[in-house]
């Protein structure tokens, strides 16, 4: 209960940023450690800088306008481009939902339950509890389960990583010029700066009642949240690299549990499975719901779990479609790790597009007045968005050429 109390006072910035450590995130960071050892660490530093910049803009938008990103996009952009943004958000979050159900399936298979039983049960359970029951209670249970991943920093130290290699890779780029490296880089961007988090953060700041006068404290929470979340992500990479670094891509999700052996010994797999299941169930509950709220808010239609199904058809429809499509794709035959990574890559393609909307909003004095981006911040933010966009574009072109 002390943990729940502590969580209750955590700010939107911290909660939003830690939403990045969902099933997709865990698996992607573990893959980075397994496949490339410590090489991705410098990239994580750069991604953290970009995340701080983006999260701060989103929190500022919420505090100074009192409106969520979806609402601002509807008001400030022509309707077709606003609709395009919502469509991209829907697709990005649908990909996340696929990852979460893949994570649910994989974690239950560690306990010997087939994913063909676990995933449909989880789908039915999540939908029923959210629509008909008390989902905030379920949310708290999942949060507690997901706290297992706070053991990663411990595992990272107990795994005796090479301190020289870690420091060197943190402070200096050791990038590889390979398609696989670039693809995973885009996946890391997609899972760390995922659009879902920006929309969630802005709405959460508004719901919390943050105003321009109280924004200073919120900014600190937002920046701390982004940094702390990425610190955990970096420890996941280090712990996995120390355990199984250089052995190539993860062949299955359960392999990632090897990183927790220094902490849990033979029980590493079970510990990992509990954490993954909690993180995946939480995200599978929250992400589709958040998407439905955002799109319904932008469209200006009824959106509330207290409404009956027929009173809020658009809201419930978006929510249900996300869940069903996510679960269905997660059950398709194939490598679950590839499926999850590809979903994060998809997020990575969409992220720079939505970041452009956020940047434009935060630059406009007509939106933020004197709190609009100043020249230095605007330059830094533009560089971040441009670099992310260029990287995604390169990988997208490579991927398309690969298909042809």
């Amino acid at each position, binding site marked *: 209960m002390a943990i729940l109390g502590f969580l209750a006072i955590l700010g939107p910035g911290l909660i939003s940023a830690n939403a990045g450590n969902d099933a997709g995130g865990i698996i992607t960071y573990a893959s980075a450690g397994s496949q490339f050892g410590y090489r991705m660490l410098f990239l994580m530093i750069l991604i953290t800088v970009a995340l701080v910049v983006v999260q701060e803009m989103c929190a500022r938008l919420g505090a100074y306008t*009192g*409106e969520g990103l979806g*609402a601002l996009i509807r*008001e400030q952009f022509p309707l077709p481009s606003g609709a395009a943004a919502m469509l991209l958000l829907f697709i990005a979050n649908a990909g996340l939902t696929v990852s979460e159900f893949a994570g649910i399936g994989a974690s239950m298979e560690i306990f010997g339950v087939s994913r063909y039983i676990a995933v449909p049960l989880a789908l039915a359970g999540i939908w029923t509890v959210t629509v008909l029951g008390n989902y905030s209670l379920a949310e708290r249970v999942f949060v507690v389960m997901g706290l297992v991943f706070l053991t990663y920093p411990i595992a990272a130290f107990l795994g005796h990583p090479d301190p020289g290699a870690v420091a060197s890779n943190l402070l200096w780029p050791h990038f590889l010029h390979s398609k696989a490296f670039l693809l995973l880089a885009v996946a890391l961007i997609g899972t760390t700066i995922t659009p879902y988090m920006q929309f969630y953060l802005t709405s959460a700041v508004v719901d919390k009642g943050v*105003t321009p006068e109280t924004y200073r404290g919120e900014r600190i929470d937002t920046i701390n949240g982004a940094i702390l979340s990425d610190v955990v992500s970096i420890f996941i990479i280090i712990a996995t690299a120390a355990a199984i670094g250089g052995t190539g891509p993860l062949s299955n999700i359960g392999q990632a549990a090897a990183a927790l052996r220094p902490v849990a010994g033979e029980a590493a797999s079970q510990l990992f499975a509990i954490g993954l299941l909690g993180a995946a169930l939480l995200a599978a509950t929250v992400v589709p719901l958040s998407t439905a709220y955002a799109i319904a808010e932008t469209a*200006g*239609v009824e959106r509330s779990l207290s409404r009956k199904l027929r009173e809020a058809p658009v809201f419930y429809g978006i929510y249900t479609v996300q869940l069903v499509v996510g679960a269905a794709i997660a059950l398709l035959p194939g490598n679950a790790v590839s499926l999850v990574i590809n979903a994060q890559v998809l997020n990575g393609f969409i992220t720079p597009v939505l970041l452009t909307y956020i940047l434009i909003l935060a630059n406009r004095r*007509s939106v*933020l007045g004197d709190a609009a981006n100043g020249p230095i911040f605007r330059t830094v933010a533009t560089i971040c968005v441009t670099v992310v966009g260029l990287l995604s574009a390169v990988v997208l072109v490579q991927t398309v050429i690969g298909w042809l």
Partner: protein
Amino acid sequence: MAHELKGSLISLAALLGSEVKDSDGRSVGRLSDVVVHWTTREAYPTVKAIVVKAGKLEVVIGARWLEVVSPSAVRLRSSRAYASAIDRHPGDVALAHDVLDRQVVDADGVQVLRPSDIYLAAVGDRIELVGIEVGVGALVRRLGPRRLRSHVRLGRAIDWGSISGFVPRTPGDMRHGRRSQIAGEAGTGLELDREAAEVKRLRPSEVQAALEDARAKRTGELA
């Protein structure tokens, strides 16, 4: 009566981007906004001017030069209409910029909906702002090709008479008396004069009937 009324009901979404021609058929530009003058004295503000975009230039043309051609088009009565530079006066509300797609909150400050279209009606030789549409149909129409937007189909509408003013984004600073001065600021919106549960969202047939009543009353007042 209902047939006449339907012919004189105008959709802002259909007007926006439409070509404005003068009486000689020459194109003046594209309609980019409609300005009404909204004071505390009147529930249904009168259209004061339109904003026309010609290339990169935006100009204002007064309502006295306008005539309604169809629910989706207006025309200038003359080829010698006077255009002026944009200058916002107290009480001026630019419908596309300040009202369309903005949030509408109820008397408790709870967001209830967003106008996806705005209805004007020709009353005598004036054009008045009469209501906002809050259905999804108008959104879909606006995303479609231009020719579909001229097929104005009434969705669920709210009487403009139940809008009490603009609200600033800081709840403690309520400036109802100065309706237009915060209009259009990001995060502001419109406020209804009642709670959400009491808002009557009129179906198309009810909109027709309500407009018919209002028009009959006001035509009587004007006469």
